[in-house]
């Protein structure tokens, strides 16, 4: 026994150096074990995700909203490029028409590169040597001029076609050439004998830059476009109609009517109203589409009555809106129903008894007992659903894609189309971000408004009655 103890002690001493690496880890573990730090460790993943998927996107949206990023500019830096459109901008925006024409012009210069290229292409060495000797460094404004110069050479090619083949190697232009920096572009222009005053330089740099820049143009554009107003009205109509009719209104009807039912049928009806919420959204909307399209249920049922089949959902803006609001409302109502029903359940039975013997009818009970007690749940559902309706567009995208003719295009959907997905494939990240930023600001403003309106502090104060 004594021996084995000694052995353990000895082996412990022997392996001590091996354990040294593990020892500090043990103390770190002990630190984690301290409940004061444990919370932080547990919070860390959540914090990381919040930063990655919430804070960062919102901040970036704020930044992108003030840029002109698009598929054309890319999201990294750009180059300097004189082309048709940048020259048009130079003419229209900066009123340097003459300069634009100048930059547009093609110049023929006898230079090293041209000679080399011509030699590569198989032009005779004698011709090129003489060309080099007689005209090196000279520029010609027109192709005809450079060709005439070649014809003066002793060793000129015999055919006009060969002369044309040589001349093309000396064609020089800044047009459609990408320059990595503004200085390169200016140097190139200078080389062609186009010298610019500082004002012109600034203008040329401005119009030829192909990357994105910071700008407030998005917001100016948003205000000036008539589409913006249509989208805004669509959004307001969509949010408040769905909210009032279904998410709060119908939810209240369901909660209150099931409250006055026996437990079994009440539970059944609540479950039925939950079904749309647990149906996969894509299938759910697909079923609505089946219901509505020209060979669908409605058309089939109405057919025998002599009503021509048509796509009932996309037939008119009114129909489209009816479907959109029904599709959203049928899902949205269930959440309110659950919240309201549980809030009604929390009202002591004795209050119902008391109001009954006080002479209150059902309607008066709802008016004087239930609704006042539902103030906070109604606030909660109103604000929660306003925000969720403002930002959710999946059902509209799936059902009508904003149609017919953009009549059901709400702000969030329009943002999505502008920035991330559209038919033309020209995605305006910057403008989309600006639209999204408006949504963020409106959302925050509305939350604050609701909290003020419903007197949030009193509502969340500790209850004064058991």
């Amino acid at each position, binding site marked *: 026994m004594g021996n084995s103890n000694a052995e353990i002690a000895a082996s412990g001493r022997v392996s001590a150096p091996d354990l040294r690496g593990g020892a500090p880890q043990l103390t770190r573990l002990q630190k984690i074990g301290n409940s004061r730090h444990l919370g932080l460790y547990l919070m860390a993943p959540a914090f990381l995700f919040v930063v990655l998927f919430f804070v960062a996107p919102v901040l970036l949206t704020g930044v992108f909203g003030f840029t002109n990023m698009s598929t054309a500019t890319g999201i990294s830096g750009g180059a300097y490029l004189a082309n048709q459109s940048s020259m048009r901008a130079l003419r229209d925006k900066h009123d340097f028409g003459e300069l634009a024409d100048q930059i547009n012009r093609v110049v023929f210069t006898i230079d090293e590169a041209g000679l080399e290229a011509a030699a590569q292409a198989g032009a005779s060495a004698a011709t090129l040597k003489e060309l080099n000797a007689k005209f090196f460094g000279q520029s010609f404004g027109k192709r005809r001029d450079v060709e005439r110069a070649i014809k003066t050479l002793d060793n000129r090619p015999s055919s006009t076609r060969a002369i044309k083949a040589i001349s093309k190697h000396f064609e020089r232009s800044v047009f459609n050439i990408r320059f990595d920096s503004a200085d390169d572009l200016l140097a190139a222009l200078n080389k062609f004998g186009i010298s610019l005053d500082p004002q012109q330089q600034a203008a040329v740099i401005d119009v030829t830059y192909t990357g994105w820049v910071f700008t407030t143009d998005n917001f100016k554009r948003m205000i000036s476009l008539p589409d913006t107003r249509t989208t805004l009205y669509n959004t307001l109509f969509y949010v408040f109609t769905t909210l009032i009719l279904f998410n709060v209104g119908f939810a209240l009807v369901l909660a209150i009517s099931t409250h006055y039912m026996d437990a079994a049928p009440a539970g059944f009806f609540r479950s039925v109203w939950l079904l749309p919420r647990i149906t996969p959204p894509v299938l759910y909307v697909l079923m609505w589409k089946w219901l509505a399209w020209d060979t669908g249920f409605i058309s089939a049922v109405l057919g025998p009555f002599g009503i021509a089949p048509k796509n009932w959902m996309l037939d008119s803006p009114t129909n489209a809106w009816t479907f959109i609001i029904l599709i959203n409302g049928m899902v949205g109502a269930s959440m309110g129903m659950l919240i309201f029903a549980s809030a009604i359940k929390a009202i*002591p039975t*004795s*209050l119902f*008894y*008391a*109001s*009954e*013997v*006080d*002479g*209150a*009818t059902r309607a*008066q009970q709802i008016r*004087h*007992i239930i609704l*006042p*007690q539902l*103030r906070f749940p109604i606030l909660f559902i109103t604000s929660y659903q306003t925000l969720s309706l403002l930002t959710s567009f999946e059902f509209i995208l799936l059902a009508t894609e904003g149609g017919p003719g953009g009549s059901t295009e709400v702000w969030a959907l329009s943002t999505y189309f502008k920035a991330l997905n559209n038919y033309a494939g020209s995605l305006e990240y910057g403008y989309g971000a600006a639209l999204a930023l408006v949504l963020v600001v409106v959302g925050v403003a509305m939350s604050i408004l609701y909290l003020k309106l419903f007197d949030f502090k009193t509502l969340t104060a500790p*209850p*004064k*009655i*058991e």
Partner: protein
Amino acid sequence: MRILLDNFTKKFGTLTVIDQMDLEIHSGEMIALLGGSGCGKSTTLFSICGIHKINGGRILFGDKDVTNITSQERNVGVVFQSFALYPHMTVEQNIGFPLKLRKESASEVKRKVDEIAEMVHIEALIHRRPGELSGGQQQRVALARALVRRPDVLLLDEPLANLDATLRLEMRSEIRRIQQETGITAVLVTHDQVEAMSMCDRIAIMDAGKIVQISEPREMYNNPVSDFVAGFLGSPPIAFLQGRITDGIFVEPSTGTKMPVNADIAKRANGGEVRVGIRPEFFQPGAGAAIKGRVSFIESQGRETLYNVTLPDGNILRSIQGSQSSARIGDEVEWGVDSSQMLVFGRDGMRL
């Protein structure tokens, strides 16, 4: 107004809670429905006010059959155990609520609310909300709301159960005062025999959905019809001994103590097994048939002291005495039972 329950039956599903009960409550009297939990006293109360629909029999207010009239139209005032005040309304709105529902004019409502508020002493509180009131104040508001429309009957469901001890004493007399001032017919549901005895004109004691006895409190205390009633009334409770009556004498089996019983009972129960009840005030030192036992528990109640005396067979007799008594736990004592005050019950528990 006289209230009559005639052959009243109430079932919950297949469970019969009240079976063919008859009860007459006289106009202007206050009656207690007394019993343990689950005896059907609250069910009876909720049936009178119409919250429960009854399954058989009739309920009459005066001569009017209200059996099929909804609670909204019955004109009853109810005070609930939890007071059931509307938390989002002020005291004034709470009290005025029944009147408002009747579409009485605002000035009329105000006048009546002020009048009743003064009566229950809460004039100063009428702009507060229930959450800002103490339990006793809430109780008064609940009373005021029940009384404000001059109901045919005032129903009180364990009104004192949620109050602390001192408030309970205070509200006991307050409710009685208000009931007597208004002359209203009132039904008090309680499990507390002290409340029932101190507040009510009569007590209807209930067990398993039946009324066992209806009497005035004193009469019920002195002349219980069964050992159940005897055991329910009185604090500290009555003590029971088992034994046999032979030749007009009850013999306590473990000590052999002989306690004479009156001739009438002796004649009826001769040779039979009986149960005798001895109230603590009739088991005292130095009087009646002396019985030996050991003091097993002492509880000082200030003015008086309660002793439990355990007999050799483990039965316990209780004695309540003036606090000058010097007995200690473990002492062997020999105190007397006043056998003329003994309550004798047959094997079925009924009084002989």
